[in-house]
């Protein structure tokens, strides 16, 4: 299909002209380059969620009345859509409140199920987001075992796969690696790491938050055992996410969050668990969120993940080229666009990243400055923080133009 951002932009109310918030008009139309923080919501997703609230709101898997049945079917249909989207079985898809909840739950499930024991080792990477890193660190501290980190190759800022070969040993029980970096955009060779891990019998966890919805992701191709992501970075609503696990592994795990909906039988002494995925979804879930995520999947599939990926690559290439033309700008990103998910970090000599972001913000160019919840990575990169521009399907070459113009303006202000 012809990829037309002008048509795509019309799908997103936030880009409509003449918006108001509490009676006050926004001064300028936003150039939104903060997609790695959260993406915008297309009208079809809002409509799907509103339909639940207005037409058939009821709790799921309980009420024996029409609305309840419709709601349950819609929730499970959304699970089916998400499963198909990542090449998985619906029974392997657990809805959570987001990637952070998925990560914490998973680590807790592994711990509660005695999958990890004292003396075991974890291998992860210096690139990881705090949401994947800290649950593993805390687990290691509780159980008194080591976390070893796969570092970076010099200059290219890619994972050091040769070092990984040495770090992953028969003592390694868990290997956790992110699919795409939310700082440099680097798409990691997760399949390669997974192969190393499986040779020694370790489980492989993949944080795919920056990647899902931005490139085709097929869990079986990656060869991982668990994978998680958030809905809100792929045109879905906030507060919904996914934890995927290989069916036979999920079957072996005990829940780590307890409540209604997850039990077969409860006595005063104990409870027994339902099958998967119900076992891992205690309490009333984010029903509207799941339905919204299902609608987001439909929307993205309709446009085509390959098309979105190609569009992001073109924007990434242009952004890197144009930024590097500005004197004093240092791009800190995966520079090969085919290996970059659509995220470009950079620093400007003599201007702190927050000042760059502030001046861009005043030009209505939305970017982010800081450590992007990846402090160890930022430290490894040797900078206090970066400015990060991140792209998605509705961004245009004009947006890159606005970004570069804003950076030049920051230089003008600080150099006068």
């Amino acid at each position, binding site marked *: 299909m012809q990829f037309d951002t002008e048509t795509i932009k019309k799908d997103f109310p936030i880009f409509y002209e003449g918006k108001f918030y509490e009676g006050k008009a926004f001064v300028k139309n936003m150039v939104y380059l903060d997609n790695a923080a959260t993406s915008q919501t297309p009208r079809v997703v809002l409509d799907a969620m509103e339909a639940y609230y207005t037409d058939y709101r009821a709790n799921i898997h309980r009420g024996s009345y029409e609305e309840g049945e419709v709601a349950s079917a819609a929730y499970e249909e959304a699970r089916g859509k998400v499963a198909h989207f990542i090449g998985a079985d619906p029974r392997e898809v657990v809805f959570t409140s987001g990637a952070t909840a998925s990560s914490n739950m998973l680590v807790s499930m592994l711990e509660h199920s005695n999958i990890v024991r004292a003396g075991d080792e974890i291998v992860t990477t210096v690139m990881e987001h705090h949401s994947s890193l800290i649950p593993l660190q805390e687990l290691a501290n509780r159980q008194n075992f080591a976390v070893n980190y796969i570092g970076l190759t010099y200059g290219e800022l890619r994972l050091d796969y040769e070092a990984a070969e040495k770090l992953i040993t028969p003592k390694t029980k868990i290997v956790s690696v992110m699919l795409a970096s939310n700082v440099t955009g680097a798409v990691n060779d997760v399949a390669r790491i997974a192969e190393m891990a499986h040779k020694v019998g370790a489980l492989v966890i993949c944080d795919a938050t920056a990647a899902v919805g931005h490139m085709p992701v097929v869990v079986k191709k990656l060869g991982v055992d668990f994978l998680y992501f958030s809905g809100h970075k792929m045109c879905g609503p906030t507060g919904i996410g996914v934890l995927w696990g290989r069916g036979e592994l999920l079957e072996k795990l005990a829940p780590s969050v307890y409540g209604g909906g997850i039990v077969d039988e409860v006595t005063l002494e104990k409870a027994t668990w339902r099958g998967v995925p119900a076992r891992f979804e205690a309490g009333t879930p984010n029903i509207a969120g799941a339905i919204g995520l299902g609608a987001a999947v439909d929307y993205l599939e309709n446009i085509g993940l390959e098309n979105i990926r190609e569009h992001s690559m073109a924007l990434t290439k242009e952004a890197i080229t144009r930024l590097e033309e500005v004197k004093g700008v240092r791009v800190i990103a995966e520079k090969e666009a085919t290996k970059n998910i659509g995220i470009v970090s950079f620093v400007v000599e003599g201007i702190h990243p927050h000042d760059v972001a*502030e001046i861009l913000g005043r030009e209505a160019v939305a970017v982010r400055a800081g450590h992007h919840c990846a402090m160890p990575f930022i430290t490894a990169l040797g900078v206090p923080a970066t400015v990060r521009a991140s792209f998605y399907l509705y961004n245009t070459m004009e947006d890159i133009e606005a970004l570069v113009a804003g950076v030049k303006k920051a230089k003008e202000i600080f150099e*006068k």
Partner: protein
Amino acid sequence: MDEELYKENILDHNKNPHNKRVIAGAHCEAEARNASCGDRGTLFISFDDKGRVSDAAFQGEGCAVSQAGLSMLTDKLRGMMNADLKLLSPGDMYTMLGVAISPSRVKCALLGYEALQKILKVHKVCKVHKVESGCGCAGL
């Protein structure tokens, strides 16, 4: 849109900060951090026999607002009586910076102020223990 935030005085202090150095053996020092941004600033203060600030300096890195704020604060502190330090308020920081501070920049503007508050808390501890080595509480 206005560039009010980056008025000349902030840019000047950022480019040529006042008192940006370490005071070896300072009577008091404390570091404040803005975890979400990575801004950091360490404030050093020394007092004379009468409890007057004889020297104030800072070290740090961060955005122009945080660094200019630290620079201006050290100027302000010099010559102040120890007992008056606790009277300084966030409002004084905003006045010195001389620009409207948006909610997202409050932490930046108050980085030096936060460091000062830490110093004042340390003083309280010292007043009780009186024997903390190296902390010349200057009678606070």
